[in-house]
């Protein structure tokens, strides 16, 4: 008799916890989606860092071979995807070097404040004839 009642109560507990793992797993799915989006955002940041570095390299190279600031900025913007806003600064770094910096604002998901990715490249000035103007 006592064994029968214990079995009944155990069965009732089992019924109340049955499927709890499934329920909690279902509740965790939004978390998984959020984390996946965050990781995609992080990889996008890495991609933008590579893009900014390439743009800084192009600007530094253009400035090193004698191009002016406008040409260097244009070279940097040409290395970025179309429509991507960026700030490009090219300054002389001593007598024989030029330094190009690119600041690329990147938007993040979930309303997180945008971050600014910075990349810098330094190149040695090269002597030689001035570059051919862009309109020729």
């Amino acid at each position, binding site marked *: 008799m006592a064994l029968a009642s214990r079995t009944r109560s*155990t069965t009732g507990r089992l019924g109340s916890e049955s499927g709890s793992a499934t329920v*909690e797993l279902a509740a965790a799915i939004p978390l998984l989606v959020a984390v996946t989006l965050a990781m995609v955002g992080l990889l996008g940041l*890495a991609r933008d860092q590579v893009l900014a570095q390439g743009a*800084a390299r192009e600007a530094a190279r253009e400035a090193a071979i004698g191009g002016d600031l406008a040409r260097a900025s244009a070279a940097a913007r040409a290395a970025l995807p179309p429509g991507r806003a960026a700030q490009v600064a090219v300054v002389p770094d001593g007598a024989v070097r030029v330094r190009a910096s690119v600041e690329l604002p990147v938007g993040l998901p979930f309303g997180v404040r945008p971050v600014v990715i910075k990349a810098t*490249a330094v190149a040695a000035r090269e002597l030689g004839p001035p570059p051919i103007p862009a309109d020729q």
Partner: protein
Amino acid sequence: MEPPCTPGGGARANLLERPAERGGATLVGLALAGVVLMAGVVAVDIGALAGSRAAAQTAADMAALAALAPEVEHPPQREPAHEPPPEPGPATDKGEGLDVIRAAYQAQDGRTSRAAEIAMANGAELMRCDCSAVQAVVSVRRRVRFVPGGLTVVVTARARAVLGRPPP
């Protein structure tokens, strides 16, 4: 009154008191949290590696170009025009040969030091510079510190620059 325990009865009772899914959700949650944490750390590290690799490649490219660029700050000094040319002879030829070798070594040192300087300005360290007057092959390295535990990884990059024929 409790019935006496039989050899098989205890095990049966334990099985009945331990439902199959009790604690399963906690384990799943812990595993999920671990996977999420690991994935986040791996994503951050991959991003750091990619950015550092791009920066190292930039440093290598600029260093190789700098190794071939003519020196601007300290142009090579020429002999004064009023000095008479040295007398030809075996001893002078030997001296001239030594001078040529010395000048070549100095030029090689100058190219290497320019490449090292530009690599350092780009945040990298020059590992090797096989630089001649017409070609420069440069290898640089850059250290990346991973997020967990401060594990440091060295990223290397290599670049080659060749002096082209001047336009007619």
